[in-house]
């Protein structure tokens, strides 16, 4: 299976702290994307990192990709209560065309 797996499964931090979530996957990928899902709602695309990129920034988000370790991390700096959500990584593989494989997600709680 190519599915990404995030860890930790749950993370609780104080507002203002940084949150780091990790994702591991099993096979070669073309790109990796991070999504956010608020409880019972749809998936919001956060950031895409391609297999030839090592780091990418978007506002308070920083994503790294280590293809040798088949892992990625998502860092949210200066967290806010509104960042409370589940965060998923999704991998698009070299041999899977349009299929995305989602991980189980990290549930982030930011305490005001």
């Amino acid at each position, binding site marked *: 299976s190519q599915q990404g797996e995030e860890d930790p499964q749950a993370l609780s931090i104080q507002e203002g702290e940084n949150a780091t979530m990790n994702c591991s996957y099993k096979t070669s990928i073309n790109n990796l994307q991070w999504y956010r899902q608020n409880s019972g709602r749809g*998936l919001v695309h956060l950031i895409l990192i391609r297999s030839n990129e090592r780091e990418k920034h978007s506002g308070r988000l920083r994503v790294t990709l280590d293809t040798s370790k088949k892992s990625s991390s998502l860092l949210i700096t200066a967290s806010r209560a509104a960042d409370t959500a589940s965060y998923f990584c999704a991998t698009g593989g070299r041999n899977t065309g349009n299929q995305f494989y989602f991980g189980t997600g990290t549930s982030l709680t930011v305490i005001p």
Partner: protein
Amino acid sequence: EPEVTQTPSHQVTQMGQEVILRCVPISNHLYFYWYRQILGQKVEFLVSFYNNEISEKSEIFDDQFSVERPDGSNFTLKIRSTKLEDSAMYFCASSESMAGITDTQYFGPGTRLTVL
């Protein structure tokens, strides 16, 4: 900002009934997808659609499921005879190009299907 829309937001049906879930992808996108998420579980790929035909499908997407682009804007998922285990949130997504290779998929807000 353009967005993917889905209707209805919640569908309740009796087991054995047919349901059609509707999606309007972003207008200039060419690739369309359906995913489902059973409560508390992973988001699972069902099917991708390009150029008026299915390009890929998962094991979940059996003969009970079908997809269609009946006109230039809508993309539908039909479940012919619903089962209890079909209860889930169904997400539609679209991308400008092949998402697994280079492009981002944009998701709709989902339709919650409840089969009684």
